């Protein structure tokens, strides 16, 4: 009985640690491009932490498995929701595709000069960078 309680409590603490590390490490390592874009190791940790917490709670209902489990659940689900649900963007309108002619436009630059995209044709490749900002 005592062994089972201790084991369940250990799992609860491990679960909480994994959830916390999974979530916090994402923001700590956000400057690494592949981590920022995929959040893969962090997601794996958060899911593992959640599982450990659930298993610990299912095995034995102690103060530790309940409290640590609740906190672990909050942290891991909160993190997973924010990165994989709340931060998701809608799909683009599928107007442009590789191989198709690029749509032309004429827009002023930082000096007020009108820049026509098609004026670059024949001169060299053009990289359009659309960044997230608002007017």
């Amino acid at each position, binding site marked *: 009985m005592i062994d089972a309680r201790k084991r369940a409590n250990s799992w609860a603490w491990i679960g909480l640690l994994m959830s916390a590390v999974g979530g916090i490490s994402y923001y700590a390592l956000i400057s690494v491009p592949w981590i920022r874009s995929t*959040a893969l190791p962090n997601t794996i940790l958060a899911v593992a932490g959640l599982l450990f917490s659930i298993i610990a709670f299912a095995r034995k209902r102690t103060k530790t498995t309940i409290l640590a489990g609740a906190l672990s659940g909050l942290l891991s689900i909160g993190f997973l929701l924010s990165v994989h649900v709340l*931060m998701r963007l809608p799909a683009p309108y599928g107007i*442009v595709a590789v191989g198709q002619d690029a*749509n032309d436009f004429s827009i002023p630059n930082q000096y007020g000069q009108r820049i026509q995209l098609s004026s*670059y044709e024949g001169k060299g490749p053009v*990289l359009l960078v*659309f960044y997230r900002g608002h007017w």
Partner: protein
Amino acid sequence: MPFDVLCDVRLEAIRAYGLFHHEPFHDLDVSLPANILIDRDGRVAWMHIATSIQDRMDPNEVLKQVQRLLR
């Protein structure tokens, strides 16, 4: 500056490339973050459109794609 910073106030280019996004949290019209590479013949050679707010291409990856077209 070696490149042009365009002000797409009327969302002309943004709509032309299907990147219009009404951001509900701030109630603002923005663009989906994207990199679109156009070759000398005016055709789309490569593109990456972000699937989430934090999804951004590694600049080195973008440069690799650009180098391909400069060869």
